[in-house]
């Protein structure tokens, strides 16, 4: 256990206090005005997202800036970015559980919900980008009268399997953790409808010693399974690129580099959501400076691993001596995308350096600013991986730049609306903090009331 773990759990929150703090916003109070405003706004933007999707399905991907040279564009970058966000939730929950980091309890629930929503949104983008989206099911191996199977050597098929298993697993893991809290809501709810709804969802949880013992065993076993899964899902995303022969993509560092990038952006998103949630639900007693301090450290460490990855990339391109690889490297620093590349390096490498100071890690505006910059930087990284390589391939006569269209931007921007809408529903209907886990931590640390 780290030194920080010896601190008693959330201050100024008794056993019943924690439950009241978390459960009351769900059961007790009617939705606040600011929740409704946020809900309506998110709903409007989500309608816009649905409109964008519909229009792409009707008019085709000619709406996007993709051309015959830069065949991947915004949809693939958005997909990699969203799935990266979706990586941190399960990792926080599983890895921090296995390494016995007690501060996890206050943030793991909403981080896992973030994972589910982000990974679901991520899964939409490759389908939109297919050109024939109604053929998306061809990625699934199913018995068919053509006696054809998907191309197993294609990274896209691995991708489909990785995302599908990750989504199913993340949902089960999240739901398993929810069961005791759903039972708490069932027992606290005043209306019969709410009692029945939460009662059905709680699967008859009674909180007996046997229930707890089994729950803990299964939860820990699933956590042990989750860690390799988190690593595999983004490794496979990395292989989407690295399994090709394009200069700048064919590097063995890609899978781990993508995993770290995913955790980096995912943690930044958790910080962003934690700040908003703490303010929106009044969870100052549960999500404390200590959490922001710890997450700030993780972001700083991940920024250095990212720096190492970039350095390795540059060094290997030079050291490998392949003119095509060196050409892409030169294009990165001197080509028309160079200002964006510089912005990406500033966001991903320089901005997190502020987090060396504890005072800044616990200064929410600064931390939030860094987190947003990191997420902007990581999105730039994903789009630049695509643009730099595809715009500067082997055939000089075929080199083209990518010009994003209005639809590219609109689809990206409105996807946040769906994410916000799902998240707003989540905080309104389910306990946003793992109450039973927080209280268990308090009990184990002797802080129980």
């Amino acid at each position, binding site marked *: 256990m780290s030194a920080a773990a010896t601190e008693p759990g959330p201050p100024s929150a008794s056993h019943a206090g924690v439950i009241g703090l978390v459960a009351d916003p769900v059961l007790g109070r009617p939705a606040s005005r600011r929740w409704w405003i946020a809900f309506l706004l998110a709903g409007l933007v989500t309608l816009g997202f649905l409109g964008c999707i519909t229009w792409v399905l009707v008019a085709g991907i000619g709406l996007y800036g993709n051309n015959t040279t830069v065949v991947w564009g915004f949809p693939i970058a958005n997909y990699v970015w969203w799935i990266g966000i979706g990586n941190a939730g399960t990792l926080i929950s599983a890895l921090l559980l296995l390494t016995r980091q007690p501060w996890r309890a206050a943030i793991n629930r909403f981080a896992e919900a973030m994972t589910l929503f982000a990974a679901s949104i991520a899964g939409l983008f490759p389908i939109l980008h297919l050109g024939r989206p109604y053929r998306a099911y061809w990625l699934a191996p199913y018995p068919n*009268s*053509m006696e054809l199977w998907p191309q197993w050597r294609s990274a896209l098929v691995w991708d489909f399997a990785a995302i599908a298993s990750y989504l199913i697993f993340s949902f089960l893991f999240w739901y398993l953790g929810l069961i005791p809290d759903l039972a708490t809501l069932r027992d606290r709810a005043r209306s019969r409808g709410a009692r029945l709804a939460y009662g059905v969802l709680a699967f008859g949880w009674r909180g007996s010693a046997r229930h707890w013992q089994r729950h803990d065993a299964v939860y820990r076993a699933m956590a042990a399974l989750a860690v390799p899964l988190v690593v595999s899902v983004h490794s496979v995303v990395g292989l989407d690129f690295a399994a090709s022969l394009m200069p700048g993509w064919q590097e063995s560092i890609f899978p781990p580099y993508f995993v770290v990038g995913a955790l980096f952006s995912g943690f930044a998103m958790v910080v962003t959501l934690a700040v908003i949630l703490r303010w929106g639900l009044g969870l100052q007693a549960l999500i404390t400076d200590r959490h922001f301090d710890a997450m700030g450290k993780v972001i700083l460490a991940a920024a250095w691993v990212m720096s190492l990855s970039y350095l390795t990339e540059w060094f290997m391109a030079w050291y490998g001596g392949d003119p095509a690889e060196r050409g892409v490297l030169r294009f990165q620093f001197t080509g028309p995308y160079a200002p964006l590349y510089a912005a990406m390096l500033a966001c991903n490498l320089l901005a997190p350096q502020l987090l060396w100071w504890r005072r800044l890690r616990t200064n929410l505006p600064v931390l939030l600013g860094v987190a947003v910059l990191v997420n902007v930087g990581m999105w730039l990284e994903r789009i630049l991986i695509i643009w730099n390589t595809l715009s500067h391939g082997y055939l000089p006569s075929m080199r083209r730049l990518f010009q994003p269209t209005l639809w590219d931007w609109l689809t990206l921007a409105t996807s946040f609306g769906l994410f916000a809408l799902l998240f707003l529903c989540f905080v309104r209907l389910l306990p946003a903090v793992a109450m039973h886990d927080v209280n268990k931590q308090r009990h184990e640390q002797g802080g129980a009331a």
Partner: protein
Amino acid sequence: MHGDPDEARPPRDALQAQLFPPWATLVARLALLALVLLPLGLLGLLMALQYSPYVTGQGITPDQPVPFSHEHHVGGLGLECRYCHGGVEVSRFAGLPPTETCMTCHSQLWTNAAMLAPVRRSLAEDRPIRWRRVNNLPDYVYFDHSVHVRNGVGCTSCHGPVDSMPLMRQAAPLTMGWCLGCHRDPAPHLRPESEIYAGHWTPPADQAARGAALIGHYGIRTAHLTDCSVCHR
């Protein structure tokens, strides 16, 4: 923990203890089961549907302008396939006979039969009879009759026992899997040249050896029979 909390702790209030009736457990278990079985069953149904005649058209007999009977003309009278489908050896399309072919006999026989009125009208107006296609492949399939009949594939291997069909029906499912069945392993279906147009052909007992020899005889490059571009160009 003090003792077994399951038994030691009474319910907080009576309402709570009666939230669900005893049969709710059964319903919950069934619902969980249905959650798995229903989607699987639905997927299974969708998968089974693609093999059904509703999708493949196998066994379906379309209405024709003239109820031409292959059973009578081929099985009864003994006309050979190529008498009417003359293009089969040289062309992608086996060919449908011009009205004049019908009239080689029917200018003399059954000249007043009501059934044949469309044939006479076709000749008089010099307009071909509009037969309805029975065996229809998708446009993205490049199928060539000549390459099949010149390399040991008999008519009835795909078209079925035509000489016993009063009205023409689609005998085979014509799915890609069905095509591949032969393209992956042609030997069991290959006939000697003399048997290509035979109305009935049953493989001899030593077909395995004969089939292998026929692959050599026709010079079939089996390694390339399942290349995409063989059928999709």
